[in-house]
């Protein structure tokens, strides 16, 4: 069953360019959205019960014939599958309206599906080299999606993204090669067991540094963040939502967390490095966001800042810290996707991303304005929305771990976030309506529907956070809390 997460999007991606010849819009829209809805339902109904007794290994089958493919599912990978499926489904719905003026919808959805298959494969892998392969699969599709508009900005941003991403991949591959040379394996269990037996701390330090640089680049952690403020704004809005909402988390944060906590084991040195990088990212991203006039660029810098919170939480290493970090990862997927989709709706209606030229848009785009306010308040950590609870958990975890200075800095970062999001809201949606926008209309139905769904989820997750924590997040935090024991249980995987 788990193989469906990879094979369904991959097969559909192969068929879509052909089906696109028969129907340029309806079939691609319908099939892509249906596939994502199927994976979302499969996650909730089919995959979640599988982890009731902890992690499972499932052998893939092809028409009931067993394949030599084994997939690993635990609470952490389930949370990521759920996040990917949820955001992908909403993005597909949004794309029905948004991608009309780009054309080539079949090719667009095909690339999007390959990216999703790559992320799903990465999340279900129990092997370092397979993680690398699926990382590349998602990355290659994402380069093309960033450049999809084919304007000079898009092509330049995609090229920069490709170059830095290739450097990241080289770091990751080098580290995997060294681990393979030393331990004789690339499976999580084999590497964890090998490192435990050999006791090679210096080598683990070098490999950790390489993974940190590689996955840090993918996650856009400071100081590896320079590609993101160009790549994410240049992409079509639904792709910006996918990149900021999901891809940097899967290819950066997920992979880094899996390796550091699940294979190497979190050491005090790693905790220091991750928490410091987390706090630096919070401030560099937030301070850079303040000065931005391009709405999508501001959101991109904000992503760097919010990823800092996720890494800070996970880096603490305590059960509450990990829980807070994962909760913020999930929440950020919701509100940052929402905010990018809103920015896309504004750009589509007004033709500009410049905040200076906007103003008073709430009068002509009320749905976009209301959902944008919800997203902004959520990301700033205003109670009782979802962002408040995840940030609160991280701050309590910092206090419990006696990292008081970091806790104060995390609160300060949240205040700065509230500041620049209020500025964004004021400049874009409130005040006097700019004369030029009097004829502007609300975004088309499917685009508005997607943003309303995400805004409602931000509110619902905030109000029902104990349920969400108990259902999706606690199993993920428990899986990570076991450290390398999870990997050691899967020796021979």
């Amino acid at each position, binding site marked *: 069953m788990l193989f469906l997460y990879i094979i369904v999007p991959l097969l559909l991606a192969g068929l879509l360019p052909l089906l696109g010849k028969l129907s340029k819009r309806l079939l691609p829209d319908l099939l892509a959205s249906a596939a994502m809805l199927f994976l979302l339902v499969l996650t909730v109904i089919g995959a979640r019960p599988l982890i009731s007794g902890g992690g499972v290994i499932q052998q893939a089958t092809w028409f009931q014939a067993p394949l030599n493919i084994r997939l690993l599912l635990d609470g952490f990978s389930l949370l990521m599958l759920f996040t990917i499926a949820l955001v992908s489904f909403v993005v597909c719905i949004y794309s029905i309206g948004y991608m009309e*003026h780009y054309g080539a919808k079949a090719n667009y959805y095909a690339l999007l599906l390959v990216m999703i298959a790559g992320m799903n494969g990465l999340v279900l892998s129990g092997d370092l080299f397979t993680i690398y392969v699926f990382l590349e699969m998602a990355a290659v599709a994402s380069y093309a999606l960033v450049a999809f508009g084919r304007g000079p900005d898009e092509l330049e941003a995609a090229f920069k993204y490709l170059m830095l991403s290739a450097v990241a991949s080289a770091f990751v591959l080098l580290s995997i090669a060294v681990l393979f040379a030393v331990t004789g394996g690339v499976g999580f269990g084999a590497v964890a067991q090998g490192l435990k037996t050999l006791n090679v701390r210096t080598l683990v330090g070098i490999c950790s540094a390489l993974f940190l640089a590689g996955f840090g680049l993918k996650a856009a952690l400071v100081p590896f963040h320079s590609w993101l403020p160009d790549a994410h704004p240049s992409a079509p809005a639904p792709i910006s939502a996918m990149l900021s909402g999901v891809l940097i988390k899967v290819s950066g944060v997920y992979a880094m967390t899996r390796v550091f906590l699940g294979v190497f084991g979190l050491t005090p040195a790693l905790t220091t490095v991750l928490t410091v990088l987390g706090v630096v990212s919070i401030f560099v991203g937030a301070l850079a966001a303040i000065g931005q006039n391009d709405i999508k660029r501001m959101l991109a810098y904000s992503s760097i800042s919010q990823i800092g919170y996720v890494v800070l939480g996970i880096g603490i290493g305590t059960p509450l810290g990990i829980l807070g970090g994962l909760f913020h990862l999930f929440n950020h997927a919701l509100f940052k996707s929402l905010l990018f989709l809103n920015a896309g709706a504004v750009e589509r209606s007004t033709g500009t991303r410049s905040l200076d030229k906007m103003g008073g848009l709430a009068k002509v785009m009320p749905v976009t304005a209301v959902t944008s306010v919800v997203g902004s308040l959520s990301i700033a950590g205003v109670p009782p929305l979802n962002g408040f609870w995840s940030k609160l958990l991280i701050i309590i975890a910092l206090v419990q771990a006696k990292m008081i200075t970091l806790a104060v800095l995390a609160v300060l970062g949240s205040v700065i976030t509230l500041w620049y999001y209020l500025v964004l809201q004021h400049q874009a949606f409130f005040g006097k309506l700019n004369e030029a926008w009097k004829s502007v209309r609300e975004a088309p139905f499917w685009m508005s529907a997607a943003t309303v769904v995400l805004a409602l989820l931000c509110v619902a997750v905030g109000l029902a956070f104990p349920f969400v924590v108990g259902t999706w997040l606690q199993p993920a935090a428990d899986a990570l809390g076991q450290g390398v024991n999870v990997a050691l249980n899967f020796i021979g995987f």
Partner: protein
Amino acid sequence: MHLFLLIGLVAFSAVAILCRELLKSAISLAVASIFLALLLFEMGAVYAGVFELSVVAGLITVLFITAIALTRGDGDVAEGRAQRWVFPLFFAGLAVVDVLVMRKLLGRIPAIQGGESGSFSQVLWNQRTFDLVGQVGVISAGVLAVLALFRRDNGHGKGESHE
């Protein structure tokens, strides 16, 4: 022999980066690939050597040279002076670290015997099947990227509307 091939590989890789002309750079890269292929043959990795020689040194070089031939020379791109010394400096630093630290360090580490065993096809088809699915995905992504970025219709007007 190994040392000679390794020096050739590193030297031509460095020339590929330092070269000011794209054509010479692509040819240097191809020569570096040939050295790598020979190294792989020497070390008994025949399949990897064949792939390196045919795909990287052969096919990709042809693609590079074709792309360079199709590119119009609209004047030199201005490049900062820092570009000229950053790589050589980085390269020299890395070489020093490699000689002083890594060699000694790796020599002290006892490698565990094991890993994937069997013939190339057995490993590829029976033990790394999941990676093959991933490879299919990577190739699909490349093909779809070409289809999407070189499409004929241009009805979006997106790039022009950016501020």
